[in-house]
């Protein structure tokens, strides 16, 4: 069993807490003068996404979590699972709905996603920061209105609904920032 001591703590390090894989978000070394040393850490539980705070005695060992982050290509879904492929080994693994979570509304086949794998199963999927998606449905575009004032909802090919400028038409391809869900620009076809 691999372990880390608190001396190795840094943000991004993956450790096991109460049988769940977690990622260290922030690590602070605290030691009152002449007192004991502690590591005060903020941690994200990678299964639930919840943040927690914990304090360790400095020098304590903690079990390492066998978690890897790799870029994988989204291949297809059978409605129950979403399949991803390692572009180097061509190996495929599937993610369930919990692991896909909010990434679902941005996923287009062949997109390269950041995938977190724990014990051979996908824990978490982060879509690319920017995706290009076709407008499936929106009110007809107002010709000539490129002033940027006002917006309207548009449903994209993946089902996501974003606010777009009034001049956008059905069938256009848009660049979207997945971190905020904001429209960025039109993509010339």
């Amino acid at each position, binding site marked *: 069993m691999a372990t880390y001591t608190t*001396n190795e703590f840094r943000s991004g390090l993956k450790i096991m807490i109460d049988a769940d894989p977690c990622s260290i978000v922030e*690590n*602070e*070394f*605290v*030691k*009152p*003068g*002449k*007192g*004991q*040393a*502690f590591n*005060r850490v903020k941690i994200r539980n990678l299964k639930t996404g919840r943040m*927690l*705070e*914990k*304090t*360790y*005695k*400095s*020098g*304590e060992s903690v079990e390492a979590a066998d978690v890897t982050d790799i870029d994988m290509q989204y291949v297809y879904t059978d409605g129950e699972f979403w399949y991803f492929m390692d572009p180097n080994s061509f190996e495929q693994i599937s993610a369930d709905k919990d692991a896909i979570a909010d990434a679902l509304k941005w996923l287009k086949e062949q997109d390269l996603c950041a995938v977190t794998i724990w014990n051979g199963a996908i824990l978490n999927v982060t879509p690319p920061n920017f995706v290009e998606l076709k407008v499936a449905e929106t009110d007809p575009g107002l010709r000539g209105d490129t002033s940027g004032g006002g917006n309207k909802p548009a449903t994209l090919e993946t089902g996501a609904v974003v606010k777009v400028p009034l001049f956008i038409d059905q069938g256009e391809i848009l660049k979207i920032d997945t971190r905020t869900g904001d429209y960025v620009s039109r993509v010339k076809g």
Partner: protein
Amino acid sequence: MVNPTWEPRTSLHVLEVRALFLTLIRQFFIARDILEVETPALGSHASIDANVSCISCLYPAVAGLTKYYLQPSPEYAMKRLLAHESRSIYQLCKVFREGEWGRWHNPEFTMLEWYRVEWDYQALAAETEQLIKDLLQPYRQLDASEVYTYQSLFQTYADINPLSTSTQALKKLLQAHDINPPETDYDGFLQLLQTHLIEPKLPRNKLIRVIDYPESQAALARTRKTAKTRVAERFEIFLDGVELANGYQELTDVVEQRARFQRELDGRSAQSNPLPVIDERFMAAMASGLPECAGVAVGVDRVLALALGHTGIHEVITFPFDRI
């Protein structure tokens, strides 16, 4: 290959202010007729203090490689000088602590330590505050200082009496504030309350002096009997929740000194930590007679960082631990 970061972490301005601080510190002591001394950074003995880990190194000797230790504080050596010269002395030096690496810690840091012969610890605390204020004055105007006893500090900011409560009550209080404490002892829980709960709540922009610590946290300070208990004649000075100085009415009783070392060693063997050996040269100096004195250590990097508004000491150290 990526080029490693070779540049210093400090700006030229920080270097200039650091140089100025070192000059002003020396002027402060020259004006008070306190002698500057140097003692070895390398020692043959590790610290007895159970909460201090020394960085060791190997030196070839006839019998093979001998272990030496980078000094975590110049205290033992300076006390040997005090026992011999009975004169107020100060030192500006680098000290070393294994494992101390964080926003306010670097395994190697600059310490200012001085001893005032025949002085009382409260007078030394006032002198320490004067020096810190003198250094900060061009950069920050501090509000009037405040003084707490360790007891009143905990009563004010944690609503608990640290001298007469139970380990369980301390643990409960920590949990009530969402601090998941590891298993530790009474003093460990008090220290967690201090770092996690009290220090963040301390008033900003003023020096906070805390005096009279629990006997169990006396370290090398003399203790005094009070109505209900014994307290250690020790002080610490905080600014913006950061500890800048730690001082004692120095323990001069060699019998008590040996008893305290033994208690630390017992504590260490209980945690199955490596056992350091008592430095008999230091003990012999204590036996020959340490003059009545008060001593204090100031973290120079922290004073500099707070003068310039930094939120940690790495920005004021040319090459912190991750750039050496």
